[in-house]
Every structure is written in C-alpha cells, then in structure tokens.
C-alpha cells in the first residue's frame, strides 16, 4: 500500500472536487489549478527521488474493488511508467500556470481548470494502473474532459466536428481494446498486468493471442495514433485550445504507446510477434506520410501551424511504433525516449504555436508571413529551437529516441525478418531527412525573410511565457545531453518486461 502514489493520482481529482464547491471565483479557480498540479508534481518528484531502480513494481497498492468482476484497485510504477508520470505532472502544471493568464473564451475558467485536472487524473491513473480493467477505466476518464476542452474552448467553426471525431474515434478504439482485455481474462482468469506479463502468454493459444493483440492493438493504435487511424488527431489539435493541444500531444498520445509496451507486447508475446512487422510498417508509413503532409502544408497558404505540428506528431509516434515493433530492449527504450522527447518538444511547440496564434489571431502560415526574427527575436529563436529539437538534432531530446528505435530496427528481435526491418530502417532514415526538410522550411518560412503578413505584432516573449517555457527548454537540453539519466531508469524495467536478461 503506497499512499503517496494514490495521492499523486488523486490530487488533481481533489482539486477538481474543490472547484465544485460553490463560491469559487475565477481567480481562485485558476490558483486551485496551479496548487493541485504543483502538489501532484511535488508528489511525482518525491516518488522519483524515492524510486529504487531495478526490476519489479514500486509503490504498489493492491486491494479488491469488485470481486465479482475480477476488478482490483492495483496501482504501482516501475521505470517505464515513472518518467511518463513525471512528464504528465510537469506538463499539466505548466498548462495550469499558462492558464493563469490565458483561458480562451468559451466558458467559466472553473470548468476549464476542473476539466484539465480530471484529464490529469486519467493519464496519471493510466500510467500507474496494473489491472487491465482499471487501466481501461483511467484510459476512458480522459475522453469526456478532452471532448469538452475542444468542444467549448476550441477555435470556433472547427471545434464541433473535431471534438466528436476525437471522442467517437477513441471510444471505438478503447471499446475494442476492452474486448481484448476481457478475452485475456476469459482465458487466463486474471486482469493483473504484472502476473500476466510474468506468464508471457502462458494459458493462451496462438489464435487467442493473435485475436487479443489485434483488438488491444487496434484500440491503442487509435490513441497513438498510428497511420491510417490518425485522422482524428490533426483536426483535434487544430481546433483545441493551447492547453488542450499541449496535453493532447504531450500526455494523451503517450497512453497509446505506453499501453503497447506495458500490456500488448509482454502479455501477448506470440500476438506481438505476428503483428510486429505490420506495426513497424504502419509506423514507418506514418513517419514518411507525416513529413510529406507537412511539406505539402508548408507550401499551402492555408497551411495551419498547429496542423503541421500535429502531423509531425504522427511522424514521431511512428518512430515509437517502430521501436516497439522491433521487440528488442533497445527499440522499446527508444520508444519510451521518443515519448518523453516528444512530450517535451511538442509540448513546447504547441505552447509556441498558441503564443503565435494569440499574437496574430491566426495560425495560418499564409497570413502569418515571415520575419519573426526581426519582429520578435526571442519568440523566433524559440520556434527555431523547437523545430531543430523536433527534427532530432543530436544533443536535444528528440535525437536519442529516434536513434535507439532505428538501432533496434537494425537488429530486430528473434523471429522477425531482418531484411524487412532494415528496409523499414532505411525508410525511417528517409523520413528523418524529410522531417528535417519541413521543420527547417518552417523556420525559414516563419522566422526569416522580410517582415510580412498582417497585423505586424511586436510583443516578444513575456515573463509569464518564459516561466512556462523554460522548464521545457531546459529539460529538452538535459534529456539530449545526458540521455543516460533517463535510460538508467527505463532500461531495467524494459528488460524485465521483455523477458530478456
């Protein structure tokens, strides 16, 4: 029984409950948001400090919830979930601080804060859950808050369809995923993720494993999102308010790849082996496709800055999928690193895109014009920093994950076609070049060139913005320069999970 972990998961929920009390004013609501998320981050950091590396779960809680259903309230974290837990807590705190000054019109700020707090509980719970049904439950918790964030505070005109697309798509995914979970339970008699991972698929025939992996994989692939199931993502990102975009990219997308690593691959090894090449192929297609779309959007005067970043997410998540699909510890470590790097970098990019949109009233490239270096040099520099971090420049957070994923693809796990994976590797390499092309093109388009577009805005980075963005920039550098700190945490857990030595 670990009270701290439960408190970390429950703190945002308590904050949201506090907001329900009558008489909470606008200012107080925003402060409660910051307080609850700060408390969560403190708790998460405390967990990280007390965390002993190595195999096995830490801070476990395991009590029966609904015995008739086989549901247990089983929480715990290991090296795979800890970094994601901290990332979630950090990004949500930044969003809360950001919301002290920026809540778009659409509804009361109380509701806005309560919704992203609920969202945080859902994601933290997902990363800490060790029971399949509990995982599913937390997985679903995020749906309604995110729907309302997009539907109510999103950009007018797009938010309605985008929000429905988001929630219906992902609900369909998670419903199918639930079927997979129940199939596992029907054959093994347990929902316990630790025990199931230890069994390595014992008790399930090949056919059952394939079927269950298909169901679970489909559900998670929608969330990842994997090409061709990604179509909800660009719309959701484009329509969502800045806070929603940051949380969507930085936190929600991680739940898909995390689920693959935590559940689908270790629990269903034979299913994973069957589908790994497809996962890898779809991942690589996502990488190439995402960058090609970005290149096209860059040329389009109606190309939306947020849409470009959204498609770049499809590409990054393609690397994570490729890493997982190698079924090697290197690849999976790479996927986790991609997750963290993407969370930091894309979180930063969406904050920047939001800042640009706030200043210019539009995020369309054609109307933004260029010359950001001239008008707002610091903002321009940050955009350039985010872009080069996104393209995987060595020394920044985006680099190591992609490298490890591709390294894993060079020598994929036993039973996988080496030739096929090296082809994927080559295509992924092509994808990195294309990614570099569009991100540099973006910098050229936005930051350089003559001052154009309307209206010309001169406000550079403000103090509050600096407060929010600095941690992301700093951590991007830290993760890029000292990748070993992160890998030392993830690697033992990954090796334990993959059954290797």
């Amino acid at each position, binding site marked *: 029984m670990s009270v701290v972990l439960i408190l970390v998961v429950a703190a945002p929920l308590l904050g949201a409950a506090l907001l329900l009390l009558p008489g909470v004013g606008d200012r107080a609501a925003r402060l409660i948001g910051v307080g609850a998320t700060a408390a969560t981050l403190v708790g998460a950091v405390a967990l990280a400090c007390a965390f002993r590396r190595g195999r096995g779960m830490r801070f476990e809680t395991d009590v029966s*919830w*609904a*015995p*008739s*259903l086989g*549901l247990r309230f089983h929480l715990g974290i290991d090296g795979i979930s800890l970094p994601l837990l901290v990332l979630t807590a950090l990004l949500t705190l930044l969003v809360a601080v950001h919301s002290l000054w920026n809540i778009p019109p*659409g*509804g009361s700020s109380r*509701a806005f804060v309560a919704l992203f707090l609920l969202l945080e509980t*859902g994601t933290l719970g997902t990363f800490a859950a060790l029971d399949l*049904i509990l995982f*599913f*439950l937390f997985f*679903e*918790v995020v*749906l*309604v808050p995110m*729907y*309302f964030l997009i*539907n*109510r505070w999103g950009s007018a005109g797009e938010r309605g369809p985008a929000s*429905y697309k988001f*929630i*219906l798509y992902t*609900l*369909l995914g998670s*419903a*199918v995923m*639930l*079927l997979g979970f*129940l*199939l596992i*339970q*029907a054959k093994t008699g347990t929902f316990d993720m630790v025990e199931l991972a230890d069994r390595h698929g014992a008790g399930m025939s090949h056919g059952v494993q394939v*079927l269950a992996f298909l169901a679970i994989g489909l559900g998670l692939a929608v969330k990842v999102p994997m090409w061709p199931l990604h179509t909800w993502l660009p719309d959701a990102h484009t329509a969502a308010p800045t806070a929603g975009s940051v949380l969507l990219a930085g936190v929600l997308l991680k739940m898909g790849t995390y689920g693959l690593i935590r559940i689908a691959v270790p629990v269903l090894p034979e299913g994973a082996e069957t589908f790994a090449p497809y996962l890898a192929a779809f991942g690589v297609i996502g990488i190439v496709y995402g960058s090609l779309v970005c290149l096209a959007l860059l040329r389009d005067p109606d190309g939306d800055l947020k849409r470009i970043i959204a498609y770049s997410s499809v590409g990054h998540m393609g690397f994570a999928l490729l890493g997982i699909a190698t079924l090697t510890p290197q690849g999976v470590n790479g996927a986790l690193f991609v997750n963290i790097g993407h969370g930091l970098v894309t979180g930063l990019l969406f904050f920047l895109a939001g800042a640009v949109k706030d200043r210019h009233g539009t995020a369309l490239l054609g109307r933004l014009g260029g010359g950001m270096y001239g008008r707002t040099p610091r903002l321009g520099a940050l955009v350039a920093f985010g872009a080069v971090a996104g393209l995987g420049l060595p020394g920044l957070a985006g680099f190591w994950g992609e490298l490890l994923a591709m390294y894993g693809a060079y020598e994929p796990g036993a039973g996988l076609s080496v030739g096929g994976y090296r082809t994927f590797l080559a295509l992924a390499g092509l994808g990195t070049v294309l990614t570099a092309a569009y991100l540099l093109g973006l910098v050229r388009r936005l930051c350089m060139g003559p001052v154009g577009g309307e209206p010309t805005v001169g406000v550079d980075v403000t103090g509050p913005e600096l407060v929010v963005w600095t941690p992301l920039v700093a951590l991007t550098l830290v993760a890029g320069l000292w990748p070993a700190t992160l890998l030392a945490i993830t690697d033992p857990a990954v090796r334990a999970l993959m059954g290797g030595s």
Partner: protein
Amino acid sequence: MPFDVQSIDWLAISPVLAVAVAALVVLLADLFLEGARKAVLPWLTLAGLGAGLALLVPLRADGDDARGTFCSPSGCSYVVTDLTLVLQLVLLGSAFVVVLLSMPMVGADGAEGAGDSPEVPGGEYHFLLLSSVTGAVALAGARDLLTLVVALETLSLPAFALVGLRRDGRGGEAALKFFLLSAGATAVLLFGVSLVYGSTGSVHLARIAGELDRLDPKLTHVAATGAVLTMIGFAFKVAAVPFHAWAPDTYRGAPIPVAAYLSVVSKTAGFAGLLLVAGIAFRPYAHLWGPALAVLAAVTMTAGNVAALRQTDAVRLLAWSSIAQSGYVLVPFGTAAGHGEDLADTLPAAVAYLAVYAVMNLGAFAVVTLVARERGGLVDDHRGLFRAHPVAALAMAFFLLCLAGIPPGLAGLFAKVTVFQAVIGAGTGWLAVVMAVNVVIGLYYYLAWTARLFVVEAPGTPPVAGSEGAAEVRTGTAPMPLPLVAALVLTGALGVLLSVAPQLVLHVLTVPGLLG
C-alpha cells in the same frame, strides 16, 4: 380427492400483499377523502411501496433456502429466491422513485391545474400504479406459466389506463396503440403457453424443463414453437425490436413519470419473465433461443441507437435509448448457446445491468420531468440548464454518461463491462463487436445532450433586447419541487454509490444458483 387446505407462507408473499393492500387503501381513501385532504394519497402510496421494500429485509435475512408457497406435487407457483428479492428490490425501488416523480404532476382533487399540462387525477393514478406494481412484484416470484401470465396482465392492464390518464388526444392515442399491440402480444403469449402445456403437461417452470428433456420426439416441434411464442410475448414487454413499435409513441403520449414507469418497472418485469422462462423452463432449448436472442439483441440495440440519433424530443430520445439498452440486457441471453446448459454464468449479468439501468434511467427521467415543467420537452430545452439548476444539470450529465457507459458514469461502465464479460466468456465474439460499435453510436447522442446542458447562452433563439424578460422566465431559476429533489438525490446517490462500490450490484453475478 380430499380437499386440502393449502398452507400459505404469508411472509413469502408479503411484499406483493403490501402493495396490493396499499392499492385498495388508496382507492378507498380517494372515495372518502375530499379536497385538500387527497394530498395524502401519494404518501399512502409511498408508504405501501416502502412497506413492500421493508418486507424484503426479513426475507433476505431468512437464509439461503428458497421459500416456496402455493405448492402442488408438481412444484411451487411462487418461490422467493435471491433472484426474486433482487428483482423485487429493483421493481419496488423504481416504483418508489416514479411516485416521487409524479407528485408535482398529480392533482390533489383533479380540478385545479398547475402549469399548462392537463392534470392527472390523483386517486386513480395511484391506485392504477400500485395495481400495476403488484403484478410486477408478483411476477418476480412466479414459477409457473399461469401465475406469470396473470402477473403480467395485472402489470399491463392498469398500465394502459395510466398511459391514457391525462385525457388529451395524444394520451388516448398512445394508450390505444399500447393496448392493441399489447393485447396481440398477450394472445401470442397465451398461445405459446398452451402449446407448452399441451406438450409437456405441466405449467411449473422447473417441471417443464424436466419434461422437455425427455419429450416425445414427435412433440418437440410443438414444444419449441410454444417456447418461441412465449418468449415473443415477453420480448414485446421489453420492447425488443421488432416488437418495439409501441414504445416511442406510448412513452411520448404518456405523462412523463408513466413513461419512466414503463421504461423501468414494466421493462424490468418483462425481463424478469424472460429470465424465468428462458433460464428455467426452456433451459433445454437454449441452443434454439440463444442464437435467436443474440440476433434480436444486436438488432434491438442497433435500431434503438440509430433511431435515437435523430430524436429531438427528450422523452422520445429516452424511449429509443431504452430500446437500445434493452438490447444490451438481451446480450447475456444471446450468449446462452455458447454456455450449453449452464446459464448461471451469463444470465445474472442481465440482472446486474437491469439494476444499474433502473437507477440511471430514472435519474434521467427525473431531470426530464423537471425541465418539462419549467421549459419544455425538447432536448434543446435542456440548453444551459447548468445556469438555472447547476446540481440538476450535473446530475443529468452523470446519468447520461452512465447510460453511455463512460467515466465519470462508472456505474454504467461497470454494467457494460459485466455484459461484455459474459459475451466474451461465452465466445460470442461478433455480438461483442456489435455491442462495442453500439456503445460508440450511443455515446454520440448522450454526449450531444450532455453538452447542451452546459451551453452558456440562454435557450431558444438568440436573445433580442425586448425578450430579455421572457428569456429570464424560461431560464427559470424557480426552486425545484421537493419530491423531484428527493428523486434526484435518491437516484444520484445510488448512482454514485454504485460507481464507487459496484460490488453491491455485481454481487448477483456470483450468487450461487441465482436462477434456482
């Protein structure tokens, strides 16, 4: 044959008796009380239902043995098992909430009308309601076909009158439609019962199952036809497609609390009957009715959800949604063939779902009743409810998300997981996929409704300077009637309780020998 005085286990039938006696008391009180004193009638009704609920306690404490009464050598006609008690708890509790819902609507003396809706006469209303509940409660304990039919008719006949009680054109039409279709269904049911009796020589459920096992092969077709027709009779009651045509119009034409009654109490009773005949009497034919009900479940949920997408009227939407929910309840029945003869693993999931469904659907009806009083019966009339009644709006959001089955509506989510578990365990994969798709379709309209609750601007047309006052009236911040508050609190608290401690309901899944 010597005349044998039957010994009757009065405690076993006491919940039924309590309600029946209350019905008579209300009828007499209505005759002798005058004017404002008739306001006591709803309280008498509540007391009767409360007494019925209270009498479940000693029966529960009685132990695990089933108590049978009205026994003959071939079996008992009325048996109290855990299943009976669970169903009676749901039925009586739901009826209790329905009475609370109707209290603001029912006139004290039938003369003065509050609001623009025609008043419903209080004495008749409560008498009919209690009579109908008597049938429902008796049905849960019935263990022979004749008692089942009689109980079902006791449930249905007063219900026709309840639908038409508000003497306007729409109510009459709804009642007539309900009556005609229902009478047809009863005829089919009786025909089925007679075939079953003819081929097996018994009306007792347990005995029928035994006889079916060693039936003369020449009679199997007759018996199977009888079984199917009997089950169709109950399928009508639960508004399974294609026997659903009466439901939307009847719900819409009836007073809203009566619609709530039909969609919860009447439906639960129908499922109780289906559960008894399918799970006990026709157990040997599970390979026949299992796949048939699986198809029925798939069609019912799909048709209900798709039709609900297009509804703009709140009650009509709930009617279609409750058809869809019937489909979910039917799913455990549909998996029966996969389980061979052992139905105890799947059918209890239907009971658990029904119990949760009763709570969340009544909660939704409570808010619809409230909004219909103040604004109107359209889904659009719920726009911005959060500003006028924050608590009611939050409760409504909770109930709708429960019906949709996603957090924070955990009670509904657990119920759906239970049903999914039953299907997957039985290996009826296609039905699980159909249901998964349906859950997504359902989410669309539940969520669209939920979103309307929190819309910021005032309901209706864009505000014009002159209509400021009118908008204020329509937004209505008048205090809610106390009975409605009580109904909301009751259903809301139960919903939250079942979300936090689902085991309370899910316990039925693991009760040994639930089907007796």
